[in-house]
């Protein structure tokens, strides 16, 4: 991997109170699990209910997140600079696979996933992206269907 990669990805910025968002998200998650635990039933010490363990975990996380939140709000936090283009490209690639694998089959899904994932890279012309998609889809077909005999459909309806 290029050495430049390390320095680039480790870029951080001071974001003040916004650094507390992560702790706030965890606090929200802990409340969801606590409420869910209560609804599921805590049981008794002798026979712990279905909701007991998630409730205890949620309670613990709520305490820890509150502590984190206080610390985050009091100090200027460091956070990584987000890369929303990369985020969108990878998310879209996964979504494309999920949408196409069962409708069209493994080969078209692998092809489209590769092309969509490679979209943020402007150094690769579109026709090369298409060729790459073809190579990856063929490789996936050879490896997963031909060699490993996994029960995937290469093309749906063919």
């Amino acid at each position, binding site marked *: 991997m290029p050495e430049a990669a*390390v320095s680039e990805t480790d870029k951080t910025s001071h974001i003040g109170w916004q650094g507390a968002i992560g702790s706030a998200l965890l606090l929200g998650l802990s409340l969801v699990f606590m409420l869910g635990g209560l609804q599921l039933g805590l049981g008794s*010490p002798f026979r712990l209910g279905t909701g007991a363990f998630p409730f205890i975990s949620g309670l613990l996380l709520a305490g820890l997140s509150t*502590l*984190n939140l206080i610390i985050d709000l009091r100090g200027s936090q460091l956070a990584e600079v987000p890369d929303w283009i990369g985020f969108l490209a990878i998310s879209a*690639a996964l979504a494309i696979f*999920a*949408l196409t694998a069962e409708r069209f089959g493994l080969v078209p899904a692998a092809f489209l996933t590769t092309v969509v994932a490679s979209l943020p890279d402007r150094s690769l012309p579109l026709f090369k992206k298409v060729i790459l998609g073809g190579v990856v889809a063929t490789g996936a077909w050879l490896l997963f269907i031909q060699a490993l005999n996994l029960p995937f459909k290469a093309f749906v309806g063919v």
Partner: protein
Amino acid sequence: MDILSSFYGGLLVVLEPQNLMYCFAGVFLGTFIGVLPGIGSLAAIAMILPLTFYLEPTSALVMIAGVYYGAEYGGSIASILMNIPGTPAASITCIDGYPLARKGRAGVALFSTATASFGGGIIGMIVMAALSPSLATLALSFGPADYFAVILLGLVAASAVANGGALRGISMVVAGLMLGTIGIDLTTGDLRYTMGIPELRDGVHIVIVAMGLFGVTELIVSIKANVGGKSTQKIDYADFYPSKQEWKSLFAPILRGGSIGSFFGALPGTGQTIAAAIAYAVEKRVSPQRKDFGTGVLPGVAVPEAANNSATQTAFIPTLTLGVPGSPPMALVIGALMIHGITPGPRLLVEQPNLFWGLVASFLIGNVMLLVLNIPLIGLWVRLLQIPYKYMYPTIIVLICMGVYSLNNNVFDIWLTLVIGAAGYVMRLFKFEPAPLLIGFVLGPIMEEQLRRAMLLSRGDPMVFLERPISATLLAITALILIGASFAAFRSYRMTRNQT
């Protein structure tokens, strides 16, 4: 002497040409299947199982064992090179393995992995040969309270895995515990947090969590920095070997990892992932390089690998001597034996000495084969990193999709990977590291099960945790670690406040 003569007898069995061939075939196929993301040892054994029906029982078992530890070793290769764990246990290897690859030290990391796997495998084999009967008895004497205490210790130690600080680390461990509760409650049959989604009934598969948190998140982070660029890594075969000093630094971690792994492998229901997680957490506490863990240090890859491979060997102890499969792959082993008319249990050592000792000896031969096979292949694996990233990352995303999809042949798992990956990325932006979450997720379900059992057996009396010597000792160690970590965190917080 008795053990040595039995082992010699087993060696003669495994050195028969057909057994040697099946051992090699198992190791070879296991390694290559294990490299593929998401396709772990369970799938690898399942693929090979039909072939073994036509073999002699000893040959069949030797081949299955070869596939098993070959796949577990192979899983670490994708972890180091691409940050996508080939097997669940290999997700622990990602933590230091991938940073090492980023530093241009993938070759050394793979070499260390191969030697650590070999060391761990040999430790596991020695433990299995020498202690099988007594270890099986000890494992049986481990009560639910002891299990709970040992897992709690592992979790507290795991919080130290985080680089963002102990408080954030513990928070992520607990978040992992919570995620582990999603799905059906095996005690009551009630559904928890499934939101009416049938695919969540069986919970979230660890491969999905690992692929999302490590694979997807890392891809998002690395695209901006790498697209359009060419690989700058030059391959020099001299760089594959650790320096003399690094060799020395690996010896103790391999020994510790192998010992911890052999213990946890023998405990039914734990398995390699838990063994690797706890060994990593312990090493993070005791290693002279503990401060650099998570940034790419060789003991950070050697320890989980030694523990993983050692646990793989000792997992056969409860399977063969008690007939208790400690993990799903071991259940397949029992199934394969039963197809051959062999019932695993305490009588197996007496009734089938050739099978038992042949298997133990095959660990030695198989691990040598694994080493001999994989060291020349390191160059090939590292060459993968020379492929320009613009070609590499779309291929990785397809491999992630295929690996996840192969779990249940269900696209819901892909959506779940996307959600977990996105959440992992956002949390990473705010300095919440994913590694402790993964460890909490792995250990959570078994922790809950043991807590409930302990409370049930003690009729709701929590003092059971302090009355049993094993659990009391483990809880005391846990408390000491917590007090030490709190003190250190408070001191560091005050120092930061004073500086600003």
